[in-house]
């Protein structure tokens, strides 16, 4: 026989244990954040409207995600863009999805991160497949998954202990996976979370990154490890250029507009990109063939002064300023 007092005790103890855990998480720098997963992305993808020339959609990889701040964008232009950029993923499948499966004729701002942009459009390529999987998942998600995701907004925006999905996060699986290694197998390079995400996928770098040089080095080391063995392969130009150009032509043919950007990098990452994706051969050639308005941070002194603390993404204060400055330039050029 189970008594009511057993259940009451269980609930009371659970409340205490979770409260202690919540305080511990907050003391360790975690704040409530959305899980930037395929469902959160899908909720934004769902907002892409047909035949609305005023709508603005941002696509790209993590630099577009971190560096374009939606509040500032809305403040400057009066329009809050949809954030569809996705960390570690190519914009290719997303652009393909919007062009093929919608009648969108607004503005797409596509940021170019060379190692995720100039890749063959194939599922055998990780950055491509990860994006393609999200697109596929958007089209296949069930009503239950949509409802479940919608219900998760509330708890995720209140409790820091619900932060999950990335290394070092306070969820049980992430904690167990970071138990000390005994070296039996080669360990992946540490890559802890360094961002927070809002319900509409506005993303900002955790403030700790601005001052904690050890934390900066951890992420820099991850970029170095990911890229150090990558060889320059110019044949990707023949594979990626026609793919994007065809989609951009089709977007423009129905009244849509494409704006290209190249957001700041620093340190080893800038050298890596200059070596493996020389600007004149890749970015400049693509911009020339595309004929779209394009904004490379190195071309504008007011944009070139920003230095990403971990080589690839701007701190939040810098991202806010960068967003305002690049929008001012775009407005000056009359493209926005």
């Amino acid at each position: 026989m189970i008594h009511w007092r057993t259940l009451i005790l269980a609930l009371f103890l659970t409340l205490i244990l979770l409260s202690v855990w919540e305080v511990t998480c907050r003391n360790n720098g975690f704040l409530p954040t959305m899980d930037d997963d395929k469902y959160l992305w899908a909720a934004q993808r769902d907002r892409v409207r047909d035949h609305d020339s005023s709508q603005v959609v941002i696509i790209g990889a993590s630099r577009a995600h971190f560096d374009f701040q939606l509040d500032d964008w809305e403040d400057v232009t009066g329009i809050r863009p949809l954030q569809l950029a996705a960390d570690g993923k190519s914009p290719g499948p997303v652009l393909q999805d919007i062009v093929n499966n919608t009648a969108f004729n607004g503005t797409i701002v596509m940021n170019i991160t060379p190692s995720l942009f100039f890749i063959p459009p194939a599922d055998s390529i990780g950055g491509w497949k990860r994006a393609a999987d999200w697109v596929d998942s958007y089209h296949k998600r069930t009503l239950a998954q949509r409802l479940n995701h919608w219900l998760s907004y509330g708890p995720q925006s209140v409790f820091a202990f619900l932060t999950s999905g990335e290394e070092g996060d306070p969820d049980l699986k992430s904690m167990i996976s970071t138990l000390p290694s005994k070296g039996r197998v080669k360990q992946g390079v540490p890559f802890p979370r360094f961002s927070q995400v809002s319900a509409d996928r506005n993303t900002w770098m955790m403030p700790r990154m601005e001052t904690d040089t050890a934390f900066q080095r951890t992420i820099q080391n991850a970029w170095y490890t990911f890229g150090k063995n990558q060889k320059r392969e110019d044949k990707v130009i023949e594979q990626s250029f026609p793919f994007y150009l065809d989609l951009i032509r089709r977007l423009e043919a129905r009244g849509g507009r494409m704006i290209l950007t190249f957001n700041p990098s620093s340190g080893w990452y800038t050298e890596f990109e200059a070596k493996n994706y020389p600007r004149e051969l890749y970015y400049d050639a693509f911009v020339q063939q595309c004929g779209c308005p394009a904004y490379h941070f190195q071309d504008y002194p007011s944009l070139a002064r920003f230095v990403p603390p971990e080589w690839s993404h701007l701190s939040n204060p810098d991202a806010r300023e960068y967003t305002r400055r690049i929008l001012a330039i775009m407005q000056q050029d009359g493209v926005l």
Partner: protein
Amino acid sequence: MLFNSLSFLVFFALVLIYWNLPVSWTHRKRMLLLASYIFYGLWNPPLVILLWISTVVDWVAGNRLHRETDPRKRRMWLMLSILVNMGFLVFFKYGGFLLENFQVMAGWVGLSFTPLEWDIILPMGISFYTFQTMSYSIDMYYRKIDPAPRFLDFALYVTFFPQLVAGPIVRSEELVPQFSAPRRATQQQLLWGTFLLTLGLFEKVVMADVLLADHADTVFGSGKVLHTLDAWTGTLAFSGQIFFDFAGYSTCAIGIALMLGFTLPDNFRYPYASIGFSELWQRWHISLSSWLRDYLYIPMGGNRLGNGRTMVNLMMTMLLGGLWHGAGWTFLFWGFLHGTYLVLERLIKRRVRMTINAWNGILLALGTYTLVNITWVFFRAGTFGKASDILASMFFLHPEGDKVLDTHEIIQVFTVTTLLFLSHWFMRNTSVKAVAEKTHWSILGGIWAVMLTLLCMAQGSGEQFIYFQF
């Protein structure tokens, strides 16, 4: 809808509130039926139509079987029910497999045949609800049961959401009578149901998904020839994962039904403590094994037609049991291995008499568990090539095999599966309820709190239950 999701918690809270409102029994049952369709339809609304067809066909067939006296017509009505249900199963579940094998056989006789890609979605839980409704028609044919008194009761029997998509496969005499008289959960049923729901979710979310699933996935998805320790760890991880996943679902289903005042039968009774395979099948997925026994093994003659025929019947039953789990040759082979074990066990038992005590019992149980693990390799691997690689690694044939798991992961899996095995051994003659009743309320409350806390910390990433695919 998954039990381990926020949407289910909200859905079930609403169902519970309505269920306990002072409205008529018929209205409450209608709401339960509607809730069951919503529960299923939120996954894929059009596939609710299959449920309706199955419900209507078996309702009509059942009534005609009850009234009809002409044996030929009665056989015809039974065949209709079986054809419709098996037709759904064959089309949705085995269509691609049959087409693939037809293509191979056509190639053997020199015919070039390229079928269109079989892109048909597998309706969730189709193997469960078709078997459940077929049992009704077959029991009606043999006049073992009376027909359900009302269509609403029968539709609820087919669609009752706690056990709709992954069992237990309930017989009509176990559930339909419960729809006859108004019922609400007693205080004890509500409390015990809540405890079982917590326990089931804990098994699924914490034990299966957090502690074991990734390691099984790493090993079976590595595509490498593995070191012995890694192969064993992956296999043990899967044996634990599939138990916690499936038993967790059944425990949730039983708990949820109990919170509404309904009783569902046990589906698992500490199977990894089984001594031998005939006992294993009395403890693992009991509702399926008893279905196969009553509707396949016994009608084929069971053990009444001599030893040779008994063994053939055992093998046939297990082969079909394997095929029930999945449309693939590895599932069939999994059934073949279980059939072989049952046949060998029967032969051994005729020659060797042994008194089981605690000491030899645990060794025999460990031996059975080890052999079960070998069958899981075929169940999980997907292809014979991968299964033979894993088995060769498990039996020291690849001493230089690749290592894919770290030491702490191996320790974690061995600790969890050892505790799982020991807990099954010590619980084999008792039940959670009996143990809970003997435990001081404060200790039980503490255990409950730990489960709830770990559930919240694990959060449940909404991983689907393994048995949904069957």
